């Protein structure tokens, strides 16, 4: 069974602006490597836009994991593209926690499958193990590598899918996981932030 994000919502969501999204603290900064192979920081990339930050790795095969995030965010991108008043105030950052495999070149190729040229969607990773650990810890994103019976890394990882909605002041305003992540929900929440 696929996650709810792959189909229409089973309920009528609350209208944008009719509810609050209380701040959940400052979104952490972190040193990153962009898909242009440039060193930067999360805060620099976020800039002054509303940011949807997801943690992914490009070889993820769990249909209800990273592919779900890509599917849902692609939907949000489509919904915002024709609304410049929203499009120009939002960006996505997809952060790979597998820098060993997800080099800037790989990320650029992967991102190209999803990113519309008219939308700000950055695919980034960490340049060092310490930077990666610091960022994952700051966002409470636990990741487990999968090993076989002999202790050999199987090339896959287990993680709880987390997607963060971050406002223009870099405060976390919502966190989505598999059963909660949906295009309509994120679009509504973005509109709610824009109505703050």
């Amino acid at each position, binding site marked *: *069974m*696929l*996650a*709810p994000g792959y189909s229409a919502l*089973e*309920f009528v*969501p*609350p209208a944008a602006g*009719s*509810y*609050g999204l*209380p*701040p*959940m*603290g400052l979104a952490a900064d972190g040193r990153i490597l962009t898909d242009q192979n440039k060193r930067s920081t999360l805060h620099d990339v976020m800039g002054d836009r509303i940011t949807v930050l997801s943690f992914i790795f490009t070889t993820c095969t*769990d*249909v*209800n*994991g990273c592919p*779900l995030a890509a599917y849902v965010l692609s939907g949000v991108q489509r919904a915002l593209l024709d609304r410049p008043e929203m499009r120009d105030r939002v960006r996505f950052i997809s952060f790979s*926690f*597998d*820098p*060993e495999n997800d080099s800037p070149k790989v990320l650029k190729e992967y991102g190209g499958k999803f990113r519309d040229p008219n939308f700000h969607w950055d695919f980034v990773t*960490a340049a060092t*193990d*310490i930077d*990666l*650990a*610091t960022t*994952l*810890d700051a966002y*409470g994103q*636990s*990741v*487990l*590598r*999968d*090993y076989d*019976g002999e*202790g050999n890394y199987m090339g896959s*990882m*287990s*993680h*709880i*899918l*987390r997607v*963060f909605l971050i406002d223009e002041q870099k405060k976390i305003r919502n*966190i*989505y*996981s*598999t*059963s*909660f992540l949906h295009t309509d*929900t994120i679009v509504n929440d973005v509109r709610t932030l824009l109505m703050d």
Partner: protein
Amino acid sequence: MIRQVMIAVALLASMLLQTSSADETCMSPYMAKIVGQEDFVYIWTLGLEGVGDGQDKLVTVDVNPDSADYGTVVHSVSVGGRNEAHHSGLTDDRRFLWAATLDTNKIFIFDVHTDPAKPVLHKTIDDFVAKTGGIVGPHTTYALPGRMLITGLSNNRDHGGRTGMAEYTNGGEFITSVWMPTDDNLQGAVKSGNYADGYGYDARALPRRNVLLTSSFTGWNNYMMNLGKLLGDPEAMQRFGNTVVVWDLHARTPKKIIDVPGAPLELRCAWGSQSNYCFTTTALTSKIWLLYEDDAGEWQGKAVADIGDASKIPLPVDISISADDKHLWVNTWNDGKVRLFDISDPHNPEQVFEEQIGEQINMVSQSWDGERVYFTSSLLANWDKTGSSDGKDVQYFKLFGWDGEKLTLDFNLDFVQMGLGSPHQMRFGAYALYGQAPTPRAENTILKTAAAE
């Protein structure tokens, strides 16, 4: 490693898949799940004066039959003093266990992931009342994505039953609070019956319906009162909750207040992908209530079964729904019995089993496959029965096997004889949740984050 294969971590996605097995059936649907055999049960335990160190504590019992320590207490963390330890819950990633207290309002956050066999106290929230604007008696600690929802039982103005809910980040930082709707302030909710009492107790979510339900018990004045005195005080006995509130889960706004007279306590929602209903039981009227979404999409409530003889005040407490939504375990504290109801037709539950478990009984937790059923005994410090020192079966943690027809006792730990206290809520733990394996530690595959490689 075979066990690691058996006990793979099933993320939330696999809950959506309704896979064949995971752990206890009453947890948040947002939570990571254990597949297969749990390794530990963490028992949030009230300190008892004169028993051991007398402090509230988190007790870890090894429950894996393959372990050399099976059926024994392998660890205990005391938190200092007695705080009316009550319920506990895990964060959505199961890295931390939040243990709440009804008297001092402290919330103790334990790290259960660094070493699942030896939880450590990670952080203590000791300003809950001030942060939440006066909510007293933190009760249910329930995982939402990246945050914890905490229901209250009371307030700091009159210590009655009007209360609210609070949200904290998984890291323990306060986010917001909301008060239960009352006649004075319905907050846009529809009062569908006679009550809008503003009381609180448990909370459960049905994310795919965008629904959160809350139930209602009683305030600090009552739950801290001696039970005999309370039962003899007609005025105090009027101050119990009579409502279940249906909330817009995403907006956290109340939509409808449903009359459920007699203190509806634990809420348990069905797991089926088309099963839009939940159960609760009423402590004072001894009934099973069904909360359900009707064909018009409206949430309703109705009493669907009696639990024992209400005139004898059996006092239903914890309930546990099976993973296939076909059975409901119902504990009744006063007579120490567990009853099993067939809820295949949720509108017409039928009792199919009954057994005495102890002198009193409170919590029940079952494995996802339903083959293991755990029980503990303690309700509230001033309500619990006495007599443990006389050899009575009052304060215990018991594991039974369930074969579909009978319960078979696997082990029984007397928490008073062991100098621990009064055992309350149970939560399951497993090495595999954290990519770890049990001993020998030197040879296990402790899976690291990519960062640690």
